[in-house]
């Protein structure tokens, strides 16, 4: 395989070629490292590239395969890891100054499972500080740029992972999703991102933001690649007390099948209309037509309490944030400033947290402190928890009637860098469609469904399924991907970027 064939291949194809020994993992890894070298100055998807480590990992896989060992379908395939996953000895910052230079003394369960599957970790990707944001502009290390238009946001918090896929710097990436941090970046970069059922993937070794909502999940350019990665990382982990002890849903089988004949799909009435871009609604409706053509039955379903999800989320999440981030006390690890021998522990702690945290992190910690403080607890945190029940009940009622629910993944396409920085509330609304699934803990994914005619930017189609029915998310995603490929006459949406004018700097066109 030549450079172009490697970069443009799917992860499944690369895995098969490496297993067949028509290409080595070292050759594949080197091609992606070269692409990072060539384009990441513009995209800034990575905070750390571990070239030597990746090549050593790749060489070890090659040696095992040459020795006749049979490894999994993704063995030897490179991946970009969100900088929120601990990887032993590799700088891990979660996008915060507080953790600058920190090297974890252990691996996250997800990191370990990736390595056990023979997946080669290229490096750590940029993100909003502690995963708080929808644009990566809250990263202490500068924003990531959307490969489709470098003046626009790549989504967040996992903007680095999504951008690395769209810029063909990696064929696979890992994200975490607390309120949409996998799905919204997937939507605005034209890539696939899935948030598994809460408890379906392990949070052990994932730097915590809001523990009742955080969930690691796969990012890729195709539905099958995401499913293959899902299968690698999912499954019970005794080190995470909220991990589900049940078989992993048959996600790969569903992604290969893509059969939606007779499937009942419910459009959520409340996730559309005012505030939604015309091109987003148009591509969403066209996707529904394609699914109908593929044999699905489309109905409309009302989930009346979804309109309160954003409000409830911005009470529950900051409350958990204020508690989780208390660990950054400047005593055991992380930034310490002002320790002059005279100041007290409490003073050093306050100065260090002030110096180490960015504005959005401070805002959320203070919101959470307020919502949990005595006298306000019941009105804020208590009410939000009751609204969470109502949202969950809306889902339960809807899933009595339909197999999956669908909506646009985000109300607009990628906005300009800087556009929403001074207006936190406008920024929060990027996650309007994705938050309900985090609140209920069910499975949801975003799949590319075209470019908005008004700005030529990617639109994401969201599929939500009941807890532990993650396979339905992939089934619908695969059906849509197939129908769209037929209609476009190309592979994926990211192939259109690679072949088009906007992606010329990626240098991916046949000479």
């Amino acid at each position, binding site marked *: 395989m030549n450079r172009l064939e490697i970069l443009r291949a799917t992860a499944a194809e690369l895995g098969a070629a490496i297993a067949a020994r028509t290409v080595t993992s070292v050759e594949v890894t080197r091609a992606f490292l070269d692409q990072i070298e060539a384009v990441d100055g513009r995209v800034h998807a990575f905070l750390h590239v571990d070239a030597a480590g990746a090549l050593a990992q790749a060489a070890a896989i090659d040696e095992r395969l040459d020795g006749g060992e049979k490894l999994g379908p993704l063995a030897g395939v490179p991946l970009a890891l969100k900088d929120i996953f601990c990887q032993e000895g590799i700088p891990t910052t979660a996008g915060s100054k507080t953790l600058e230079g920190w090297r974890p003394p252990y691996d996250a369960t997800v990191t370990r499972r990736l390595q056990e599957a023979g997946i080669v970790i290229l490096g750590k990707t940029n993100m909003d500080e502690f995963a708080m944001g929808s644009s990566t502009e809250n990263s202490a290390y500068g924003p990531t740029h959307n490969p489709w238009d470098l003046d626009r946001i790549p989504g967040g918090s996992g903007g680095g992972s999504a951008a690395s896929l769209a810029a063909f710097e990696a064929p696979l990436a890992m994200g975490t999703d607390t309120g949409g941090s996998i799905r919204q970046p997937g939507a605005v970069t034209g890539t696939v991102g899935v948030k598994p059922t809460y408890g379906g993937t392990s949070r052990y070794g994932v730097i915590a933001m809001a523990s009742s909502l955080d969930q690691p999940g796969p990012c890729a350019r195709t539905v099958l690649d995401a499913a293959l990665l899902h299968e690698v990382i999912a499954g019970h982990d005794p080190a995470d007390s909220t991990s589900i002890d049940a078989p992993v849903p048959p996600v790969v089988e569903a992604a290969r099948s893509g059969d939606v004949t007779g499937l009942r799909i419910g459009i959520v009435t409340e996730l559309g209309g005012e505030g939604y871009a015309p091109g987003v609604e148009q591509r969403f409706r066209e996707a529904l037509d394609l699914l109908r053509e593929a044999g699905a039955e489309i109905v409309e379903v009302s989930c009346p309490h979804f309109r309160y999800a954003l409000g409830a989320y911005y009470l529950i999440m900051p409350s958990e944030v204020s508690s989780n981030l208390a660990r950054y006390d400047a005593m055991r690890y992380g930034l310490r400033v002002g320790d002059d021998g005279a*100041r007290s522990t409490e003073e050093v702690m306050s100065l260090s*947290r002030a110096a180490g945290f960015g504005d959005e992190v401070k805002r959320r910690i203070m919101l959470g402190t307020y919502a949990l403080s005595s006298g306000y607890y019941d009105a804020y945190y208590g009410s939000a928890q009751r609204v969470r029940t109502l949202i969950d009940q809306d889902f339960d009622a809807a899933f009595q009637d339909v197999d999956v629910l669908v909506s646009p993944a985000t109300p607009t396409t990628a906005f300009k860098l800087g556009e929403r920085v001074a207006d*936190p509330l406008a920024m929060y609304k990027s996650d309007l469609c994705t938050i309900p699934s985090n609140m209920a803990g069910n499975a949801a994914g975003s799949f590319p469904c075209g470019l908005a005619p008004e700005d030529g930017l990617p639109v994401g189609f969201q599929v939500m399924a009941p807890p532990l029915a993650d396979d339905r998310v992939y089934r619908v995603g695969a059906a849509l991907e197939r129908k769209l490929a037929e209609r476009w006459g190309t592979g994926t949406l990211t192939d259109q970027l690679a072949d088009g004018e906007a992606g010329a700097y990626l240098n991916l066109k046949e000479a």
Partner: protein
Amino acid sequence: MALSPTDVARLAGLARIHLTAEELERMAPQLDVILDAVAEVSQVATHDVPPMSHALPLTNVFRADEVRPSLSAEAVLAAAPDVEENRFRVPRILGEGA
């Protein structure tokens, strides 16, 4: 509800974040706008709706109380801001003259 910079200073104290006067002035109206936007949540659910803390109906998960290998003291202290006699060195924890 109008949070004043004084209210925000009190919250910052509880959260152990030292904020400058300029940050207090800037953050008070921002927090106010957000709190206003989320306030409707308190009008939606009546007290007969049970609170949901978690997506899964899980109870505590236990494991056997057995000795297992753990990180070495060296690995644990490697990232410490300051180390003394193989321990975390912390600033003084009591008041002056203690």
